[in-house]
């Protein structure tokens, strides 16, 4: 097969890779993108998008179930609903499929050449791609590694059979009767809560003393409370061992050292993700690593000239929007523009129930950075819109510097707060002070008023509390 030469080659069409390729195409760069699976990567195919589809379906199902039980405070009653998970999954697959096509279309529109197959470095300038029709050699001036990450496997609970990763969890044909979730991070909790709402008996096993250990206890408390309401058993400080000999239970060493058996027809292992650095010839190129990750500088350059890396393969936080921002930046650098990573914050959202948003520094992190801080917190129980949505649990919290009121971090927990993340990260990125947020009219009645009130609270004059 004839060798292809191009200016830019992107390996991996996840959110980082495809954004990089689209932007490069827009800038008139001769670009090729290689992907072994479908365009969109983990995020679109087996991550963010499909999980949110399933979470939404679970929310809807729980809502109507409660109405059928006659417990709805809204006074709505109906007969018992049914859930055909196969149809739900098909609906979800439909969304994923439309987005796959969408990404492919966007790449085409930007005049990017897409190639399906497994790429492998031959040297720093050459990549071989195993396609259906044979091996294609691509020579590129610049190469962007965007190979992403994979679910971490536990050696004593290897994936397969009853032990599944998030990928399989999103494609189950039936709701498991009993689901054990190993790992109480955001992936495990998002999916665990969804399955609990769909009727599964869910047990979460977390080795740390509390769930969502990356967030502070105050922020995660409403989630823990909701887990309890949903009948989810949470074992913290507990270690998953192995499947029982019959294979119908997970053996767990609890915090007090005793061994217990958790009934489970599925065991979902969500103990983190690892960078995808195997099988594509990383060993052929000599790039520095930071732990398991590829080391990059503030322009996403690796230690090898002409090779960039973006997204999960470069480290935490493993978030699609970080990868996208990196991808866009690298495309512009390749086009000769002056760019470097100068973001003030990378917001993070957990689609648990209630949702959790964090942008910038938590109070503890701010203190550790040496700043004298002022914190303002406003509960949704004092927000009218939250009350009308039956979403009174949670709060908005603003962390600012005490001396000049510069906003350092904003967190929220509550129903639907993921949409507030836009305001949070915009405020931090624009260098807002408490007075800027307090002085901005927030539409009534919305949950966003809680944001303004939290800033007012930090300034010492909240109005509605």
């Amino acid at each position, binding site marked *: 097969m004839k060798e292809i030469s191009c200016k830019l080659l992107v390996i991996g069409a996840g959110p980082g890779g495809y954004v990089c390729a689209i932007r490069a195409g827009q800038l008139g760069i001769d670009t090729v993108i290689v992907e072994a699976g479908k365009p969109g990567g983990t995020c679109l195919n087996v991550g963010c998008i499909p999980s949110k589809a399933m979470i939404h379906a679970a929310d809807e199902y729980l809502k109507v179930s409660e109405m059928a039980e006659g417990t709805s405070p809204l006074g709505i009653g109906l007969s018992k609903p049914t859930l055909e998970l196969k149809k739900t999954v098909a609906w979800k697959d439909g969304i994923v499929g439309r987005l796959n096509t969408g990404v492919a279309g966007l790449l085409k529109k930007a005049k990017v050449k897409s190639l399906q197959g497994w790429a492998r470095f031959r040297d720093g300038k050459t990549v071989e791609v195993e396609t259906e029709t044979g091996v294609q050699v691509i020579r590129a001036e610049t190469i962007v590694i965007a190979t992403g990450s994979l679910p971490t496997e536990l050696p004593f609970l290897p994936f397969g059979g009853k032990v599944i990763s998030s990928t399989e969890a999103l494609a189950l044909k039936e709701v498991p009767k009993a689901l054990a979730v190993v790992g109480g991070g955001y992936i495990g909790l998002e999916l665990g809560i969804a399955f609990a709402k769909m009727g599964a008996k869910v047990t979460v096993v977390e080795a740390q003393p509390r769930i969502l250990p990356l967030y502070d206890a105050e922020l995660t408390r409403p989630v823990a409370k909701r887990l309890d309401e949903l009948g989810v058993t949470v074992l913290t400080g507990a270690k998953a061992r192995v499947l029982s000999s019959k294979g119908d239970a997970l053996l767990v060493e609890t915090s007090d050292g005793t061994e217990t058996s958790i009934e489970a027809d599925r065991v979902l292992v969500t103990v983190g993700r690892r960078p995808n650095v195997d099988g594509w010839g990383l060993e052929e190129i000599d790039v520095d690593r930071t732990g398991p990750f590829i080391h990059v500088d503030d322009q996403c350059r690796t230690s090898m000239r002409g090779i960039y890396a973006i997204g999960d393969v470069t480290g935490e936080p493993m978030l699609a929007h970080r990868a996208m921002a990196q991808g866009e930046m690298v495309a512009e650098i390749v086009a000769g*523009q002056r*760019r470097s990573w*100068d973001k003030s914050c990378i917001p993070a959202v957990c689609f648990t129930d209630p949702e959790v948003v964090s942008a910038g520094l938590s109070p503890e992190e701010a203190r550790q950075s040496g700043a004298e801080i002022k914190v303002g917190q406003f509960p949704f129980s004092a927000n009218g819109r939250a009350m009308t949505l039956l979403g009174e649990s949670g709060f908005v919290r603003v962390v600012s510097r005490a001396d*000049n*009121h510069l906003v350092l971090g904003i967190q929220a927990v509550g129903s639907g707060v993921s949409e507030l993340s836009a305001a949070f990260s915009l405020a931090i*990125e*624009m*260098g807002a002070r408490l*007075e*800027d947020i307090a002085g901005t009219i927030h539409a009534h009645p919305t949950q966003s008023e809680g944001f303004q009130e939290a800033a007012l609270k930090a300034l010492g004059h909240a109005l509605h509390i």
Partner: protein
Amino acid sequence: MAEHVIKMPDVGEGVAEAELVEWNVKVGDLVREDTVIAAVMTDKATVEIPSPVEGQIAWLGAEIGDTVAVGSPIVKIDVAGDATPSTEPSDETPKVDSKAVAAEPEAKPAKAEPVAPPALEKKPAPASVKSTAAGPTSTGAPRPEGERPLASPAVRLRAREAGIDLRQVPGTGPAGRISHEDLDVFIARGREPVVTGLRPDTSVEEIKVVGLRRRIAEKMALAKSRIPHITYVEEVDVTALEDLRASLNATKRPDRAKLTLLPFLMRAMVKAIAEQPQLNALYDDEAGVIHRHGGVHIGIAAQTPSGLVVPVVRHAEARDLWDCAAEVNRLADAAKAGTATREELSGSTITITSLGAMGGVATTPVINHPEVAIIGVNKMMVRPVWDGSQFIPRKMMNLSSSFDHRVIDGWDAAVFVQRIKALLETPALIFVET
């Protein structure tokens, strides 16, 4: 609750107004009886105003640097209990605190709203354009080291495309935020070399002139604008005087102060004034009257850590050499320690000014208005002097003296200085009764 009003007290010397130089309290503070509320400054001294009552400060009637007429209300205090509002005429004797004289001016400029880069703001500016008023005046490091420059993504992008390191750009926005305008200013000014080396510094720092500095400024302006100065410089051979001084110091009683040149000069001036009393006078030019004083009160201009003060040796005509020396020492110590009283810092009829080791060859002393003469002492040094057949080393010192030419003719000035020169060159004459 009752309101107690404190008015600007009459701080003496018949002054009609005084400058407020320090607030020790702010609105809302609780004060006890005798808590010092404020410091005001008159001609020479700083006067502390104590609270005569216990209560809470409700109102402050002036800002630092304001000149307030005697009798105007300056503080209102809410007093618990007493139902009738009272106005204290503040007959309480104000404490003269010349310590403040010493400490004040140095502390003042720092407090007087320095134009700091907003990033350094200690207090949050009240979220208004006020903090931007500081303007892009500073050029040095715009923010503390390690502090991240604060700018919106659009500003960051523009800066990057223009190749500008935002760390070098001063931000005038709230919390030191860099705006598009700040970037415009920075670009318009031309990029400055980031590395060391020569570069123009266009910064302008505003320092409010208050307290002692303002007193000095007003006094100097008054003296120079009213008085046509004539300055006369003459050299004096002080070799014999220095020999005498050395032997007197070597044999002096241990309890006596070490003699400097000053007491000799003072005694010489007393002698010369006896012959030319018109030099020891205060000229009230508005009234058109010269007050010729019998007593010779010699002001000694002294540089203290806080600024120029002029302690006064009163009745030098009634003091002998040792007494003059002791009094000069005592006053110098008091002025330096800031414990000199108002009386000790005013009332001179003629002044000596000396810069000691920094005395230079000649100076043009400014008359201490409303006096008519000032004697400036320059640095003493060994110079070759032609004695008619050869050069010999002599200890020489210049006197630079200024006179009010409206009332002192050049001839009289010259005669006065020549008389002092003669006395100093033959110091025995100082002690001869005539």
